[in-house]
C-alpha cells in the first residue's frame, strides 16, 4: 500500500486540470495506468474525456479495469470524474454493446432532445441532508450523457431536462458527473475531502 495519489490516464490528453487542482491542494500526483499502481495507491483519480468506448478500451487493454474493481471492492479511496464516472455504470447509450465497469447497476443515457446538448456550464447540485462527502453547490459540467438512477448509492442531483445524477458516493468511492477540478471553490472543497479519506 502506498500513499501516492495516482491519476489514471484514459487515452486523452486532458489531465492537466486535474493535476493542477491537486497541486493547489499540496499534493503532487503521479500519472500511471499500471494495474499494481492502481491497486496499491492511497488515492486514485479516474478522469476521462472522450467517448465511453475509447476510455473503456484503454482501461481493459492495460488491465486497469480489474485493478479498479479490486480497489473499489476493498473500499479504497477512488474518485471517478465525468466519463470516468460513467464508466462505473453497466453501459452507456453513447457506446451500445460496450460493457462498463458495472459497479453501478444502471445505464447512462443521452439528455432528452429538448435541452441543449452538450450540457456546458454550471449547474446547481443538491446533495440532500445526509450527503456524506457530497455537498450542495454549483458545479461545472460538460457532458451529453448522464445517469438518472444509481441503486445502492448515496446520490446528489442536478436538473437539465429533468433530474439527473450529478454525483454518487458509497464508502470510499465517489463518482462525479461534473468536473471538481474546474468547479472553483466548490470542487476544490470536494477534492480536499476526498484526499482526507483513508
Amino acid at each position: 500500500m502506498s500513499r501516492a495519489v495516482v491519476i489514471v490516464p484514459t487515452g486523452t490528453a486532458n489531465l492537466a486540470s486535474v493535476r493542477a487542482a491537486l497541486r493547489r491542494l499540496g499534493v503532487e500526483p503521479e500519472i500511471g495506468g499500471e494495474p499494481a499502481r492502481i491497486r496499491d495507491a492511497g488515492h486514485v483519480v479516474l478522469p476521462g474525456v472522450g467517448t465511453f468506448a475509447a476510455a473503456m478500451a484503454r482501461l481493459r487493454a492495460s488491465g486497469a479495469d480489474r485493478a479498479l474493481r479490486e480497489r473499489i471492492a476493498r473500499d479504497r479511496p477512488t474518485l471517478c470524474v465525468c466519463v470516468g464516472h460513467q464508466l462505473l455504470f453497466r453501459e452507456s447509450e453513447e457506446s451500445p454493446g460496450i460493457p462498463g465497469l458495472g459497479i453501478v447497476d444502471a445505464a447512462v443515457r443521452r439528455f432528452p432532445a429538448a435541452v441543449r446538448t452538450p450540457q456546458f456550464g454550471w449547474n446547481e447540485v443538491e446533495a440532500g441532508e445526509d450527503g456524506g462527502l457530497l455537498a450542495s453547490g454549483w458545479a461545472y459540467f460538460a457532458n451529453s450523457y448522464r445517469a438518472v438512477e444509481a441503486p445502492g448509492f448515496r446520490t446528489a442531483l442536478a436538473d437539465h431536462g429533468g433530474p439527473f445524477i450529478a454525483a454518487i458516493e458509497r464508502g470510499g468511492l465517489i463518482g462525479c458527473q461534473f468536473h471538481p477540478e474546474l468547479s472553483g471553490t466548490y470542487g476544490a472543497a470536494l477534492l480536499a475531502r476526498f484526499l482526507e479519506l483513508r
Partner: protein
Amino acid sequence: MLARRIIPCLDVSHGRIVKGVRFQGLRDAGDPAARAKLYEDQGADEIVILDVSATPEGRGHQLATVERVRAVLSIPLTIGGGIRCVDDALRLLEAGADKVSVNTAAVARPELLGEIAERFGRQCCVLAIDARRTASGFEVLVKGGREGTGIDAIAWAREGARRGAGEILLTSWDRDGTRSGYDLELTGAVAAAVDVPVIASGGADRPEHLLEALRAGADAVLAASIFHDGDYAVATVKRYLMARGIPIRP
C-alpha cells in the same frame, strides 16, 4: 438548472495582455494569470484567452502562458488563436487548456472539427465564427476579420456543430470594439440554428447588453473591455442579470 455563463476574454500577445490599459486592482495588469485568477475570484464562469500574436515567435509564449494560467485557475479555460491541427490542440490541452477554439483553420479544412472532437471529445472543440453583415445575411470572416469568405455564417454554424464542434463562439465583426451592444439578430439566428451552446461576443459595453444577448438566445456572453477597463466587476454584472431573472451561478 443550467446557468448562463459570463466569460471574460483576454487578448494576449507574447504572453502579455494587450488590452485594458485602465485596469485597476492588480500590480501587474498585463499578466494573464493574475488577471484570470482575479476574474475567477469575482465570479467569472470561464476564461477565454485568444492569442492575437501575428507571428510564430509571439505564439511561442502560448504554452508557457497556458501553464501559468492553469496553475492558478480552477474554472474552465479555452484557448484560441493559431490552432491549425490536432497536434496544436494536443499541446494546448496538455499544457492545461480545457477547450481549444478554432476559426480560420476550420474554414480552410472543416474536417479539423471532427478530428479534434474524435480525439479529445466534442466538449474540447469550440468553433469560433467571426461574422459580418451583408446585404443578404451574415458572412464568415477569417484571418482575424481581415478576409471575407462568402460563406453564410448560419449555415457554417450548423455544419460546424454537425462536424463535431461542441460550442459556437460567435463574434459580430460589425459590433466588435464598438461598445454598441451584441448583434442580437445574428445571435438569435445562430442559437436557433444549432443544438450546441452559443457564446455571444462583440460589442458589450454595459450590463444591459449582456442581458439582451442572453434574452436573444445566447447560452453565454463573452466580454473583454467592459471587465478589463474596470468599469464593471463580474460580480456586479451577475447581480444585475440575476435580479432580472436570468439563471446565473451566484
